[in-house]
């Protein structure tokens, strides 16, 4: 039936492309989570009145975040070609997309992390200080756990942006559903392929949103 409706679709190719999209999204998401938390924490801790108040460092991190958020993703990929080549050894395939995906998404997520951290009640941090907690303890036992629901819902938003980025990366050779839709659908005027790829991407987005909402709600004890 699938072959009747979509005569040009090769199921194995679709599965392969879907797998690549998942692969890129999940690995990039893991990288974005770590780098974004790092950036967000740095922004938060070094801000005025923060635990590591430091104007210079804050300015540097904020500038990095702002600059990389300002660069359109498609241009960022091109810009990072030499870096990617050096790091991964190739500029084609899903792995080659990862550096650009992470560097493109982490600053965005970093800002969401910063916002989430700013939402934490100052009193709770003060209470931990009054108990004699080290800054490290405050970060890992207070800041991160207390903002976890917001960190997760921010990650969901970022994941969805990342899925969009993987499709863009796909068009210039990174593989995945974007690649499949572009080369086997658009270039050959086989629009049934484009259509099916779209549907699959939408389903992936829904899955991420659904899982993110469940986790975030489960963690939220407020």
């Amino acid at each position, binding site marked *: 039936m699938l072959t009747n409706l979509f005569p040009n679709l090769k199921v194995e190719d679709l599965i392969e492309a879907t797998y690549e999209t998942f692969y890129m999204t999940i690995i990039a998401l893991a990288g974005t989570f770590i780098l974004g938390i790092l950036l967000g924490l740095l922004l938060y801790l070094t801000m005025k009145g923060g635990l590591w108040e430091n104007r210079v460092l804050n300015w540097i991190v904020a500038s990095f975040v702002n600059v990389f958020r300002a660069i359109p993703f498609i241009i960022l990929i091109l810009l990072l070609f030499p870096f990617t080549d050096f790091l991964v050894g190739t500029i084609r395939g899903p792995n080659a997309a990862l550096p650009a995906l992470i560097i493109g998404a982490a600053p965005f997520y970093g800002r969401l992390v910063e916002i989430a951290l700013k939402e934490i009640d100052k009193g709770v941090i003060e209470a931990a200080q009054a108990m*004699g907690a080290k800054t490290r303890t405050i970060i890992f036992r207070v800041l991160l756990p207390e903002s976890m629901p917001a960190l997760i819902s921010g990650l969901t938003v970022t994941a969805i942006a990342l899925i969009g980025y993987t499709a863009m990366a796909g068009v210039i050779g990174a593989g995945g559903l974007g690649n499949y839709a572009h080369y086997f659908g658009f270039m050959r005027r086989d629009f049934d392929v484009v259509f099916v790829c779209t549907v699959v991407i939408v389903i992936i987005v829904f899955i991420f949103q659904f899982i993110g909402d469940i986790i975030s709600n489960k963690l939220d004890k407020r």
Partner: protein
Amino acid sequence: MISIKGLRKVFQAKEDNITAVDRLNLDIKDGEIFGVIGYSGAGKSTFVRLLNRLEEPSEGSIKIGDREITALNKRDLRLARQEIGMIFQHFNLLWSRTVKDNIAFPLEIAGVPKEERERRVLELIQLVGLAGRENAYPSQLSGGQKQRVGIARALANNPKVLLCDEATSALDPETTNAILDLLVDINKKLGLTIILITHEMHVIRKICNQVAVMENGKIVEQGEVLEVFLKPKQSVTKKFVEQVMGSGEDDDLEQLQSTYKGEDIFRLHFVGDSANQALISKIAKQFNVDINILQGKITQTQMGAYGNLIVQINGDEREKDNAVAFITEETSVEVEVIQRAN
């Protein structure tokens, strides 16, 4: 003993600097419940926050026991803070942790091993009366219960000092009383020193031994609670005492005098334990007089009862004099003559 010398805190503002605590000197004895009262902006919160250096002093020294808090480096300050409990107006619990885990947090910070932590947490839950709620999250608790968690948490590392900044201000009167009772209970059981900030005189009246009145960053009056209640010197203090005892008595007095023209009227000042000795009925039995209570209020403090009664005493002239002499000489009640018949 807590010894504070020349403590000063200046906040740098854009235009002018704000001196929140101004060259404050104070000694607080071990095991005392020491109240600090003052109006909003008097510098009370700044004062307690200086004690564990949540706020860095601009000048002066703080000594708790034989530890010079103001001289400690960062690491030693952290260790010292583990022995200074603090509770807050808005409780400041971690919402992501259960009651049990909130109480365990300071123990984690102090590096107490897991088994001992669990044992201690159960002990504390019993102490503050939260048995059965250990696995609840703060959002599932009432304000009073949250403050009990706050108290348990503050006591976890066996502190010698407990700092309370407006610990009952977010609670209703009944819950306030229950929390205050708990604090007295803890003070007696554990013998720890409690420093309690409030803007409500009835809190002072109910649990404190000593009180200091703060105004503009300074302590303007200080002493035993009863003493301050009885003889408030500063006008701020008088206002706070009126919060509890009511005011405008002198207006009422004129009315009393005109109503009971030509009768004997006395004011009896009760200070300390004598109010519990059934004074009125004793006089009525021992002397051949009638006592008519016209007006008054007696209230209980940690150091005994305090208040005054305006009474009319009727009877034979000699008996009246004897009764008054008895009160003056044999009891700690002071007699003030408001009006004599002749």
